[in-house]
């Protein structure tokens, strides 16, 4: 009998309450991101495809110190240093295997020259695993593309700092 009363009470109190809640939700604005049809939005510190930065005069910033390769937990950065004609140390080879990368961002934290950065690009699927290795030239090109976007005001500057930004993300 007590069972019966409890069940009946729940029917007459809890269920209408639940139904009212779901009914209210029917008229809420949907939170679906209409992604392929509309561009996706990103947090300012989103970690996407890498790029290698340049000085304003076009010189690469990377000094091939190898700290990024050491910091990388998935061992996906490979680099070989060389000297350029002015006797400065630069990278001869700088490759990132994006399919092994876990986009942790340790490389950009380790870099003393602010040379390697993670950008916002994420649509870089390939048909072959081999194509996932981004060479130095490709990484620099990513930077150039970003710069062009910046000049047109498309892309927000990525602030490099370790504290969390209080800014709302979307």
């Amino acid at each position, binding site marked *: 009998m007590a069972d019966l009363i409890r069940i*009946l009470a729940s029917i007459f109190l809890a*269920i209408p309450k*639940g139904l009212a809640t*779901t009914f209210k*939700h029917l*008229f809420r604005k949907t*939170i679906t991101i209409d992604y392929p049809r509309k561009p996706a939005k990103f947090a300012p510190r989103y970690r996407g495809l890498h790029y290698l930065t340049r000085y304003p005069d076009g010189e690469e910033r990377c000094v091939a110190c190898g700290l990024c390769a050491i910091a990388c937990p998935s061992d996906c950065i490979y680099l070989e240093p060389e000297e350029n004609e002015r006797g400065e140390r630069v990278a001869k080879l700088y490759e990132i295997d994006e399919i092994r990368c876990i986009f942790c961002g340790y490389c950009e934290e380790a870099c003393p020259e602010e040379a390697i950065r993670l950008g916002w690009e994420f649509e870089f699927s390939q048909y072959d695993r081999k194509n996932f290795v981004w060479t130095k030239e490709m990484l620099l090109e990513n930077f150039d593309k970003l710069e062009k976007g910046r000049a047109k005001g498309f892309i927000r500057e990525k602030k490099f700092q370790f504290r969390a930004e209080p800014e709302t993300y979307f």
Partner: protein
Amino acid sequence: MLIPIIIMVVKVLVIFAGLMTCVAYMTYAERKVVAHIQVRKGPLFVGYHGLLQPIADAVKLLFKEDFTLAGCNKIIYNLAPLVTFIPALLAIAVIPVGDQITVAGETTNLMISDLNVGILFIFAVSSLGIYGLVLGGWSANSKYSLLGALRSSAQMISYEVSLGLSVIGVLLLAGTLSLNEIVKAQSGGILDWFIFRQPIGFLLFVTAAIAETNRIPFDLPEAEAELVGGYHTEYAGMKFAMFFMGEYASMITVSALAATLFLGGWSGPILPPVVWFLLKMSFFLFSYIWIRGTLPRFRYDQLMRFGWLVLFPLALLNTMVTALIAIL
């Protein structure tokens, strides 16, 4: 002689086509409404706001490979979907969708057949559908299907008792088994509707009906978390679609029955009777989806306890009290 036959054929075709359209768009409505309850958008891409989605689904299911399982009982495996589907369609035959009309000098009711035992016919036919589930689950020779089928048979038998008893109140008050007569008994305005004279009967009927059609929160036969897909785990393509359409068709039948028994069927002011009937039926169909978006699934023992210890005694009590009042 010819005209009544033509009228009959037209009625059958119209009601059948209407029912199939309803089934197709019920799947669409379900996806849309549940999506919006969960603050999603639902089907969007096929046609305007996904309106052609049911057609795309049908085409997809038609072109699926029609495979035969190893170790299944082929004849029963292939027949079971039909056994579920056809009774679900049959039951709609005795539900009046509108008032009498006169076409070419022939007066006809807007229902396929005005049986004087309409309700009994619906119960008889709709409980045949359970054979399809049981046979389908058994013949596939898979443990999940079998468990789903066993559950559904136990559940449907338990809830059919309450379903039948909850209607008896209405029958006692109306004094007839013919659905057309029951509608006429409630046509004197909104206060004549049996929902006000049989409120407990109404709640019992709706609850038992949800269980009877295997819908959330009583959808244990196809509890996907435990049983993969329940009795239709091993079905694909059009055979799966048959089970699915059978389920939706019986939802529509039950909604139409609820509208007829408790909300006065096609009777209503100003608007044409058919529109009233469709409005009342859609209310129940919407509630089905709404409840699906709200309530979690029962556990099996809760389901059985609820069926036998709550619904059944209440239905009995309701019947006895109504009978007492009807006599006095």
